[in-house]
């Protein structure tokens, strides 16, 4: 263990295997992650993760509970401070910018215009005491929209896009089913047309038929809007359906990466083989 800790600083300087793989598309990446590490006291949350994410690309992060998936996502979304490593993001008109060098005001602006974050539990991502319309409109108002009629019609539009009944615009999210709340959360995040969305188990906690419809919707939106996304999931089927690339984590480290079909059909690492073979077949 101690030897690994010593290696980390050195490892952070060399790009990981995935960034080489992702470099194939050419052009600058949307998000460049290098040597990302975070410890919780002596315990490793996430260690030496590196990859590039290009515009329009969907990356799934899979692994069992406690493997560091959620820690990674929170580090990426700058919700947690990094212990080591760096994050660069392609800001329109400014090129690749080191996120740690951004002012807090700039970072917040980025988070609610160019980024989205879909929480696993929609109650964490929604404002439960205001109507669906206000939930969708909040980001618009935060970036300066001051025309009630326009905010409202945009919100209505987005309810339709996530296949919700626009007549429920003025209802509180507390009255919605879990699947609807998750749709609303997605609409609320996409209303400013972000380029990058982080999703933490977006379909967990929903029953299978609702899950299937939500996945369908997500796939559609991601292709329509050309979204780049990082999706954390323990469900390999979700990864298979949505992701172009996959990143398998175990004990805070990336054990295998590659194209989704390649990794799932021909897993190389014993842990990935275990994961793939553990999927229940009906």
């Amino acid at each position: 263990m101690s030897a690994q800790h010593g290696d980390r600083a050195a490892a952070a300087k060399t790009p990981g295997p995935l960034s080489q793989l992702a470099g194939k598309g050419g052009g600058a990446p949307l998000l460049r992650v290098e040597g990302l590490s975070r410890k919780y006291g002596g315990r490793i949350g996430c260690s030496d993760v590196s990859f590039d994410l290009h515009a329009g690309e969907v990356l799934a992060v899979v692994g069992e509970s406690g493997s560091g998936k959620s820690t990674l996502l929170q580090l990426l979304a700058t919700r947690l401070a990094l212990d080591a490593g760096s994050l660069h993001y392609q800001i329109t008109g400014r090129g690749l910018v080191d996120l740690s060098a951004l002012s807090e005001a700039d970072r917040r602006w980025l988070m609610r215009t160019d980024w989205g974050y879909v929480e696993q539990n929609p109650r964490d991502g929604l404002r439960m005491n205001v109507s669906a319309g206000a939930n969708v409109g909040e980001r618009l108002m935060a970036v300066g929209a001051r025309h009630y009629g326009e905010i409202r019609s945009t919100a209505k539009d987005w309810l339709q896009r996530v296949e919700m009944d626009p007549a429920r615009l003025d209802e509180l999210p507390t009255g919605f089913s879990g699947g609807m709340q998750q749709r609303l959360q997605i609409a609320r995040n996409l209303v400013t047309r972000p380029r990058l969305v982080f999703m933490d188990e977006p379909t967990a906690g929903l029953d299978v038929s609702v899950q299937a419809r939500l996945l369908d919707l997500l796939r559609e939106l991601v292709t329509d809007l050309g979204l780049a996304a990082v999706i954390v999931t323990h469900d390999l089927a979700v990864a298979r359906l949505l992701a172009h690339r996959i990143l398998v984590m175990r004990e805070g480290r990336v054990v295998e990466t590659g194209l989704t079909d390649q990794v799932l059909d021909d897993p190389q690492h014993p842990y990935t083989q275990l994961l793939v073979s553990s999927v229940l077949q009906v």
Partner: protein
Amino acid sequence: MNALPGYNFAYLDEQTKRMIRRALLKAVAIPGYQVPFGSREMPLPYGWGTGGIQVTASILGQEDVLKVIDQGSDDTTNAVNIRRFFNRTAGMATTDRTEEASIIQTRHRIPEKPLNENQILVFQVPLPEPMTRLEPREAVTRKLHALADYGLMHVKLYEDIARYGHIATTYDYPVLVNGRYLMAPSPIPKFDNPKLHMSPALQLFGAGREKRVYAIPPWTRVESLDFEDHPFSIQRWQQPCALCDAEDSFLDEVVLDGGGRMFVCSDSDYCQTRQAAGHTGSENTPTEVSA
């Protein structure tokens, strides 16, 4: 003059007054910003104007003339008690007349008569944080203030329109001070919001329980938040004041003994001054009075 023996002038000790004055100076320097201060126990419960009293006590001098109003009236319990409190502990002159006062402590109203440069208006504030209903964590609201990130307040106004068809917030209507800080104007009716704007008088706000003071210096821009297609508007009434016929003042609805109701000025000094000048309304025409 004839203050009670055993008390320091205006009740608070001098060090406390200095501490509050320092906080007030900072508040004036940063219009609309909530400055923390060491609020003291006062001989009346929280919610009765402990913040306003401490601010008044720390700026009061021997020469000052104090007016205290509650809901516009000089004669309600809160106003009478606070006026008597300062009468006893500071022994200084008090008045009912807006134009004679140098310091006016108020709860829920701004006097109808325009104020001047030599006057200070002290507000009693129950909740200094305008976003507290939407974001109860103070660490977060302070950050929102620091970053001037006020979209949240519009979410509340949006919600008002979505539910009631218009902005239903009628008191404590949020304002933006000097184009920078979002501020709760204390529970004054939105009717009074325009009076905050470019006021010649210094306006001080004290919240005793929440331990915050803030200020609007004279001649400062104060804008009420609104939407482009739902602009800010103030309350209007169908009829003028039933006692003084005023059409430009904030009216209270009063239920009469006979079951009827009348609308009268909430600012008692304004109403009485007008009546003394010969204005009469529907409820006190000269024939009725002489009969």
